[in-house]
């Protein structure tokens, strides 16, 4: 949000009831690591517990990451997907596809619809395609 390339942490809560809490998330159910090179600088796995899911953009396999017991690690090369589909190493939409597949918290058609609202024309199609490829890479069926 501040300048591209700077390390950024962002937090999401979703609920069917009104969310009033404004603090950061300390015990996440899910984390998405957009750049695995930051893992050595930030303790991204802090607060994860049994049943949590870590989705990591990396060329490596899940075994390469030392996570708390019971945490499910999902890895994918979202940068490669983004480069192939978008032509840029911007991995947000790919990782949203991976999140949808890994967690089942959002359905792919809803994600595609949201991306269609966020982007227009060819850019919308490309981002939906990037999300679709990542969704499939993590085992989701569209």
């Amino acid at each position: 949000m501040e300048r591209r390339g700077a390390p950024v942490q962002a937090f999401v809560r979703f609920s069917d009831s009104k969310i009033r809490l404004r603090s950061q998330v300390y015990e996440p159910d899910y984390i998405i690591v957009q750049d695995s090179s930051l893992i050595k600088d930030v303790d991204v796995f802090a607060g994860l517990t049994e049943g949590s899911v870590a989705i990591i953009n990396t060329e490596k396999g899940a075994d390469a990451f030392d996570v708390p017991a019971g945490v499910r690690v999902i890895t994918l090369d979202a940068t490669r997907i983004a480069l192939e589909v978008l032509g840029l190493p911007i991995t947000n939409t790919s990782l949203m596809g991976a999140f949808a597949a890994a967690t089942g918290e959002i359905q792919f058609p809803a994600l595609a619809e949201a991306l269609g609202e966020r982007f227009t024309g060819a850019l919308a199609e490309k981002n939906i395609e990037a999300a679709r490829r990542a969704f499939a890479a993590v085992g989701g069926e569209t």
Partner: protein
Amino acid sequence: MMEIMEGSHAVAEAVKRCRPEVVSAYPITPQTHIVERLAEFVADGEMESDYLTVDSEFSALSACVGASAAGSRVYSSTSSQGLILMAEVCFNASGMRLPIVMSIANRALGAPLSIWNDQQDSIALRDSGWFQLYAEDVQELVDYHFLSFRVAEDHNILLPAFVCFDGFILSHTYEPVDIPDQEEVDAYLPPFNPYQKLDATDPISMGMYATPDYYMEFRYELDRAMERASRAIKDAGQAFGEQFGRSYGSLVEEYRMDDADTALVALGSICGTVKDAVDEMRDAGRKVGLLKLRSFRPFPKEEVAKALDGVSQVAVLEKNISPGSAMKGAVGLEVKDALWKTGIDVYSYVIGLGGRDVRKKDIAAVVDLAERGRGDMFYGLREELI
């Protein structure tokens, strides 16, 4: 219709529906997305405003002063250093009784440089003669813009307004919000009808020199207008509720204050976290409540005194620091004044400066401190750095 929207974009949608004739602002984090979006609206022909690009915040508000004096509805927005650079113009705008509305994405002041949230910027402009509303969530933030223009332009008030909201915490958060239709806003907020304006065919001078024989009465009238603003904000909030179903008929909001022994007092988005913390403490059998202040100027002294009547101690959460003040925070002093001679203990806690996160457990810890009679202090310092 409810939709999920970034706070800054929701502000831009609200401002568009207020139909300002002139917008002048200078981008600064975390306010930037508001003015970017407004510039897009103007460029795309969605908004019939003159969007003035300027070289600084000082110029931005100076342009607003001129445009408002010429009889236009005027909007601006800023943060932090930008607001402080505007300070000289802020006093002129209120002194000239120009009903400019400005959104303040609250951010810490340097040095050291911080882009993150606290409320030092708008609190520092406490005495500038602008009324100051503080939003808890994006919905209040949107609604306060309609309300503020209506109150500011009231011929019985004629004061400029800050609509304050916590930078990043509200400005960059996506959450569900209802943006009223244009026709509904038009019904609530009629076109600007200036009390007086610059007109070449009927010339007047505004903001002129006042000798010692005249100056004090101008300041007296400014203060009287601020006193009247209390009633006007409540009336406009009541009318808003009747039309839109979300009522702001009081300058304060009480949350679980019935039979409360310890009351927290706060401004802005931290109130949401406090409400969740209060629920947890109530579940644990502790008699704790929240008094949320919607307005810091005018300060709702009577409402505060009434709401806090019967509590034993009050913990005021301060996202500001007044160095050298015995209470540390600027809000606590006002609360203490409202409770003078009641015997209720009032303590300030400077918390969350420069974006330091505030959690439910921090709120509970502050309640513990207040109940042990400890306060007027910083909370959450890293002892190893001191």
